């Protein structure tokens, strides 16, 4: 095993780790050796091919299909220089005041998160697309919502030079998405932070990290040669995401002192609905996600978002098989899509665990309330499709493959509450949150309100695993705000951390 010395080690380079790296970079001027360890590679520009399966394999853990223990849901999370910010759509919303109030973390205010969020909205060039850049798929969603009187709004997006390839979830081939791989990490490196890619952290020890560097055969070569390393550090910031971070801390034998570790996982369980129009519409050209509808967030616990997916993802999202399925797939240029997300409760039983090899295992039971939300969301989506002129709708929980426009007034009947059969319907998540939740005491949380792990002054968490409950919106801006806060704490504590370690 090779030994390395650092002052600050950051594990992960996504919305949390990338933000922390840049926010801690000024310490490099004072001699602090800061290293980011990222499990995935740094992709070369020409490697973003837009080929669905190839990119899914390279960018996501388990090709984006990480299965929960009961195999009722898949979870998508990225693995690359920039983490999941390489594969999100760039939707940049700020968490609401009621949500932060519901989180109930003493010492954490909405005002603080909002102030930090604003900083990142500016830094990431967040803006609204012009009407000319909005395709039919998105426009029809907005029109359908408005006709029904549903509250609908345009997503602010963090793009610079977007050419509408529509391939955001496979990594932008035009380099237009302002994730941490474009903004925070390059700036951190400029200031002296070292980023080591293809580096999987095996465990954390007392003020040290044990990690393994491997080469993957794609992406840029890692800054370190393949091999096993022990990196000593005075402060360690864990930002491996809501699945990776709890699993790492569990592998590091911290469960005994942190009973809440891995627990209270939330994930916005989601479904994709697809409708067919009589004629081709513009859907896969242009940015895929321009609008959202939060009309039912408080009353029924769900959000609707316009979306457009690739052939395999679309095929998988439709329930059923055979001729009907194929017919729908054969005319993708006529499809309109809506992503529905349930606002799920934080339950202690929903948790990340580690198996005998230390790999993450997610135990997540889809609560009855979440099922009700998903069915209500499917009904609302079907209404939006028909209000937008769709001829037929495929709802995964429907008793028939298609709901025809003639049955538009029988949507509730066609999508029964008991139609959402787990294991049959494709349920996925791209927003895992919690597992190292913030709070006041170790009994029900893992860190304090500033991301410091209870009882371990040198160990911090700075990612979505901090969320005490779900974000109720697309979470990346909130992750950045929290990571910024954690970095501020590390900077403030730095003189003590340095002194105590020596």
């Amino acid at each position, binding site marked *: 095993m090779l030994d390395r010395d650092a002052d600050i080690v950051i594990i992960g380079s996504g919305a949390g780790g990338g933000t922390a790296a840049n926010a801690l970079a000024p310490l490099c001027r004072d001699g602090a050796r800061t290293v980011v360890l990222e499990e995935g590679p740094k992709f070369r520009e020409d490697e973003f091919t*837009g080929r669905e399966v190839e990119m899914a394999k390279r960018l996501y853990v388990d*090709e984006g299909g990480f299965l929960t223990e009961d195999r*009722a849901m898949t979870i998508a999370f990225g693995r690359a220089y920039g983490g999941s910010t390489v594969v999100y759509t760039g939707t940049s919303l700020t968490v609401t005041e009621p949500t932060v109030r519901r989180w109930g973390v003493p010492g954490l205010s909405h005002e603080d998160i909002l102030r930090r969020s604003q900083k990142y909205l500016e830094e990431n060039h967040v803006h609204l697309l012009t009407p000319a850049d909005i395709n039919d798929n998105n426009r029809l969603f907005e029109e359908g919502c408005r006709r029904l009187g549903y509250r609908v709004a345009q997503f602010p997006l963090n793009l610079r030079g977007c050419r509408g390839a529509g391939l955001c979830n496979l990594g932008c081939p035009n380099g237009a998405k302002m994730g941490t791989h474009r903004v925070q990490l390059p700036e951190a490196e400029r200031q002296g932070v070292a980023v080591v890619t293809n580096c999987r952290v095996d465990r954390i020890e007392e003020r040290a990290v044990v990690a393994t560097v491997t080469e993957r055969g794609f992406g840029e070569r890692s800054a370190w040669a393949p091999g096993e390393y022990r990196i000593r550090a005075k402060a360690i910031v864990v930002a491996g995401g809501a699945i990776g971070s709890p699993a790492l801390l569990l592998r590091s034998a911290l469960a005994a002192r942190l009973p809440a570790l891995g627990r209270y996982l939330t994930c916005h369980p989601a479904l994709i609905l697809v409708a067919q129009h009589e004629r081709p519409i513009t859907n*896969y*050209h242009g940015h895929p996600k321009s609008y959202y509808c939060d009309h039912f967030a408080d009353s029924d616990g769900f959000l609707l978002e316009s979306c457009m997916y690739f*052939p395999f993802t679309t095929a998988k999202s439709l329930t059923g098989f055979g001729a009907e399925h194929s017919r729908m797939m054969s005319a993708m240029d006529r499809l309109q899509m809506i992503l529905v997300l349930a606002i799920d409760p934080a339950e202690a039983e929903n948790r990340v665990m580690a198996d005998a090899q230390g790999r993450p295992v997610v135990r997540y039971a889809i609560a009855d309330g979440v099922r009700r939300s998903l069915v209500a969301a499917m009904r609302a989506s079907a209404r939006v499709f028909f209000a937008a002129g769709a001829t037929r709708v495929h709802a995964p929980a429907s008793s028939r493959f298609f709901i025809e426009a003639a049955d538009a007034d029988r949507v509730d009947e066609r999508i029964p509450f008991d139609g959402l059969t787990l*294991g049959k319907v494709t349920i996925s998540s791209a927003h895992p949150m919690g597992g190292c939740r913030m709070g006041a005491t170790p009994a029900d949380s893992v860190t304090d309100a500033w991301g410091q792990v209870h009882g371990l002054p040198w160990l911090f968490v700075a990612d979505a695993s901090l969320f005490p409950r779900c974000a109720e919106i697309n979470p990346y801006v909130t992750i950045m705000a929290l990571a910024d806060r954690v970095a501020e704490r590390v900077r403030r504590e730095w003189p003590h951390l340095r002194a105590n370690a020596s």
Partner: protein
Amino acid sequence: MTQRQLLVSLAGRIVPESASMAGSPRAQMLSLIDEALAARPPVMRRQFGLFLIVLRWAPLLRYLRPLDRLDPRRQDAALRWFQDCPIQAVRSGFWGVRTLIFIGYYGRPDVGRDLAYVPAADGNAVLHARSRR
């Protein structure tokens, strides 16, 4: 019948177009399925192999023949039974088989042309041109 032969036979019912595939497209489909399977943990691969055996032989109880010896209508009925089975583990198993076949068929890089799905790096240019029409 090998696992691969059974998968090819199933693919013809899950994605009817795959039944007429030959040569390179078919090899591509199978290769994608193999790669997706190989990426899963050994225990999951074993469970998958076991599930395929169940999928093949369970119809014997109702139709007195294995799945691959049934006429297409009965094959579909048997597959729908698996899809809607009261036992979640069985439904999940079928979902896994279906997903693997989809990854093989719809994951092929050149499948887009058959689906009227042809993205472009400069999608906005296409979008703007169409809106001017």
